[in-house]
């Protein structure tokens, strides 16, 4: 019973969504989606957020209690969490308040810093990928050089055919392999959905049978 009812809910929900995909009827597109599903999805968010917050707080609390490795960092979680929550509750979340100030001047720059690191990691990954250790890696290296050169003005100065070759690489072999992957992904996701609908795949219910 513990798994049968959730499975039934999933199966019925899955079938309704399947019908939704093929049916443009008002009942499905407005009554079901906009008037039923979306409001209930929104209603689910606050309790789920509380679950997440409780989970994170318990984890950090346990770390502090156990004096786990680098447990002192957990205080930063509580400090940040409490400060920004109080700022939001008492000062409001609008621009100009402490909450938004902290978001714009602390979280955003830190996020941007993380994102900026990507450039260096990309260079490092490119270095690894472009080492011509095998014929396949050599082809990859050549293709990358052509595509990269075609993106900059010097590429056209070297050869006026370079942009066309680059475009061909992007449009033909690159796109073909990408579509091949997407085709596999599509089939894989349909198969996974089918397994869930038929009740064969039950891991989302907590593993096991």
């Amino acid at each position, binding site marked *: 019973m513990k798994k049968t009812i959730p499975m039934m809910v999933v199966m019925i929900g899955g079938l309704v969504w399947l019908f939704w995909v*093929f*049916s*443009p*009827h*008002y*009942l499905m*597109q407005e009554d079901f989606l906009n008037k039923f599903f979306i409001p209930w999805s929104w209603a*689910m968010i606050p309790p*789920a*957020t509380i*679950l*997440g917050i409780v*989970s*994170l707080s*318990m*984890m950090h609390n346990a770390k502090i209690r156990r004096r786990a490795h*680098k447990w002192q*960092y957990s*205080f*930063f979680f509580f*400090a*940040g969490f*409490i*400060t920004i929550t109080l700022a939001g509750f008492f000062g409001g979340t609008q*621009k*100009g308040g*402490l909450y938004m*100030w*902290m978001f714009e*001047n*602390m*979280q955003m720059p*830190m*996020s941007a810093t*993380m*994102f900026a*690191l*990507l450039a260096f*990691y*990309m260079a*490092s990954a490119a270095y690894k*990928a472009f080492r011509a250790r095998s014929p396949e890696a050599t082809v990859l290296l050549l293709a990358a050089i052509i595509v990269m050169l075609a993106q900059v003005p010097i590429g056209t100065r070297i050869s006026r055919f370079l942009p066309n070759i680059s475009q061909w690489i992007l449009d033909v072999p690159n796109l073909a392999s990408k579509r091949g*992957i997407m085709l596999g*992904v599509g*089939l*894989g*996701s*349909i*198969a*996974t959905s*089918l*397994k869930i609908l038929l009740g*064969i*795949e039950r*891991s*989302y219910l*907590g*593993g*096991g*049978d």
Partner: protein
Amino acid sequence: MTLKRPIAVLFLLIILVVVVSLTVAQSSEERNAFVVEDFRVEDVPHDDGTGLVLSWKPLDRQSRIIEYRIYRGISSDTLFYHASIPVNVKTGVAAEKMFYYDTSWNTLVETKSPTRLRRERKQAQSSPLYRAIPRDPDIIAGLVPHFSLLSLIPNKGDYYHLTRKSFSADVSDSIVYAGISLRRSNILAQLKPQGEYYYTVVAVDERSYYHEMAPITKGKPLPNPPEPAQSLYAAFIEDKDTIQFEWQYPLFSLDLHTCKILMLPAMEDSIWVARRKQPGYGGLNPMVLAHEGVLSAGSDTPKNYKIVDLKKFYAQGFAPEQFKNARFALELGDHQGLRSFTSLIEPTIANSAMLPGKLTYRVEDKPNDKGDRLVVIWDYPMVFLTKTSSLDDEFRRLRVNYQLNAPESQRVSNIYFKFFEVGNDKPFQVINEFYTDNAITVNTPVGYDHMKGFLVRMTLKGTPMISPGYSVEQDLVWDTDMRTFMPGKSLRVNGVDVSQINTAVYRKRLNGDFFSLVKSIPSYDSSFEVSVPYKAAIYRLISGISITRGDSVYTYTGDKVFARTRTKDDPAGAMMMIPSTLDLTFDRDAARTIQTSLFPDEAKKMVDEALAKLRTELAEQKETLSNLFFQNPQVAANAQDRSNTPEDQAITATEKKIENTQKLIRMYEENNYLKEANGIGSRWRRIRFISRIRERDRRLMAYHVVRTNGKGLFTEAEHNRDADGKYLYEIPVSNWFDRNKFTTLVAAIIFGLIVIYFLTLAKRGRTLYIRPIAGLFEIDNAIGRATEMGRPILYCMGIGGVQDVSILASFGVLSAVARKAAEYDTRLIVPCYDFIVTPIAQEVVKEAHYSAGRPDSFDPHNVFYLTNSQFPYVAGVNGIQVRERVATNFFMGFFAAESLLMTETGNHIGAIQIAGSDAATQIPFFITTCDYTLIGEEYYAASTYLSTNPMMLGTLKGQDYYKFLIISFLIIGTILATFQITQVTNLFPSR
């Protein structure tokens, strides 16, 4: 009491964060008080007296303003927040002046407005500025005399089902109102003509600092004469004895009530300008050629053309020359009786050959939609060239782009392009475009001077059949600026230049007696999709507000307040009084809209009262008729045989009245919808029935098209009518199945059948061979490595939510990994991005530990929610990797830019990494930085591989066979398309 050390540390940290934040936020620069200058409140010109325009000089960019907040009140001591104009803080406002128009219906109170009045933020006690008007009945009641109020009920069901019968405290008012509470309806307000309103503007900077308000300024909206029509054209059609008029309404046309076409003798315009507003037009005595109402439905524009038949004027002795030499003007009148006039214009002398060709049109339901679109089609599909580009340096090869505009019901299988040299009838190239990808390649002739340009003729083939004689022609001319050939200005359909011709689509409601303009479509299209939206919200005028306090009921209506003792029928609390009557249906026989009430008993009473009144009227009319016949016995019994004497006309008119009254009685007695509605006892079921009928009626429309050059030369199409000569009304149909997805459905069914077949085989114990995937074989080794090293394993599902299939697939892998980790007694850390994924992941890991027989080793703190911000999540995961010195990383799920950041960190700390994702853009990064990568479908196969359930293999096998099917179709389709056989290609949806 001693403070524990951890609590003390936490406390100090909070103080530190708060102090640092506040100090930095407040200390950067001194605040300056910026006051908005040159603030004015003026009447909006040409309106109906319900609009004011506010203007002020914006502050400069350095003041870092983010918004201008506008406050409005009915006295200078209390101004409520009314609206805000956001400003880009970096660019500021470049214009010299800013404007805000307080016109039309603006929101006064919303359902989500607070219930208590609060002073505006950071204002002194003496400040007159308050936040938005609250949902406080007393405050709203105080505003009733100063505004016209409209109730906007966002959920129509609230009006239909949750309104209460409500009565005014004014004993002379016997109307039964529908009372709706303030919680269920927004209130929109419009300024009243001659009312006095007070305004101010406050600039708010990026730190939410409210600068000093502008001086409070009073404004009074006044009714003004309407703006003259933007243009007027007249065309005298010699061979048809008609004059055609066409005009453009001014921007503000909502207040317009009537329009007159005036004919005057030729004169100087200055005389007309000087005398036209005087009584009797200053003695000019123009002849009124047409006098009509200006009416439109919803957002449509009123009808803007008129054909005046001159034959009746010729019969009165007028000569054609009088009309040819006359001058014409358009007079627009508003509801207040104020008028505006155009300048005098001369008519264009034309004949019917100069008019655009007459159209036939049809109205179709738009297929595969939810039932809110109709398509008006008046011609075959239109194809035209859009641009060209040279594929070499000498313009020997041109890529020509084209556009095909066709309704969904029309399939175009082939477009034939014929390219001609200028002055040569023989095409130098013919292209059969059998796959419409909006581009063709043309080889231009050698030895031809390209600068002369080319001529292109296009014909089409499709289903339903397109006439072989239908052709579209365009010129390709050299464009010096673009340095390529571009389509010329002319667009010839069947040899006629239609580039300056538009097709105007008009529509009329079932209960309306006028057509209004929906849109004017250029000739580059031959059909138009008309939106016929479903009714979602209800708008009703508010007559007043009724508030029950103790034993008394107070009603605020207009500028009066009434009070009486409360009865048991009066609802408690505050109610907005809106009409309880509503349109039910349009009775075609009586040509009248039947009204009914929300309340069943009132509805029956309405019918009884109407019938009683009509029967009395009928008896009186019949008596009048018999008296008339008695007094005039010579009058013929048959109306057709009567003369034009006053007696005859009086009898005919009375007979007409009797006929109309009888029709109305029949309507009330026999209309099926009314009978059925009044026969339903339950209010709920009755209203459901009424709403279905009335909403269907409101969406029934008749359509009409007119082809015009916009300057008086236009031709009306014949109206679509039924056998009785009545207009045909159309309504869109909501489709249950999207036929464009038929192939998808068949493909999905085939795939499902293949999978089920292999599942059955697996169930019967048949061994299914599955090709090996290296990454999956290494999972055991990776977990074993972590165990040997005594370090934890990290399992990361990326930034997907539970709605992503890739996350659902990840649960299967997580289950297998967790079971193995539990068996080896190795710690598994699962940081989650989504708070809904977290409890599921916890349950998956817990079950895995139980099934491995190690429930004791499950620690829920190892599966936790981290954050749902992308880069903080990366920071968290990277921190865990480094701090916990994980030995093995699994990245299975949905990833975006964070993938490389996390895997490179894993690489750096020397962890063995296995990744799997369906995000095609991230797979190269995984391949580069991870030891093993499951690409696309391999990732989805992972849980199947790792599962002990043989049935799971059936789906994998099914996938492989289905891929074979896809590849077969790809090859067959490619070969057939090469030979211009496109049936297989067209089988598959392209959108």
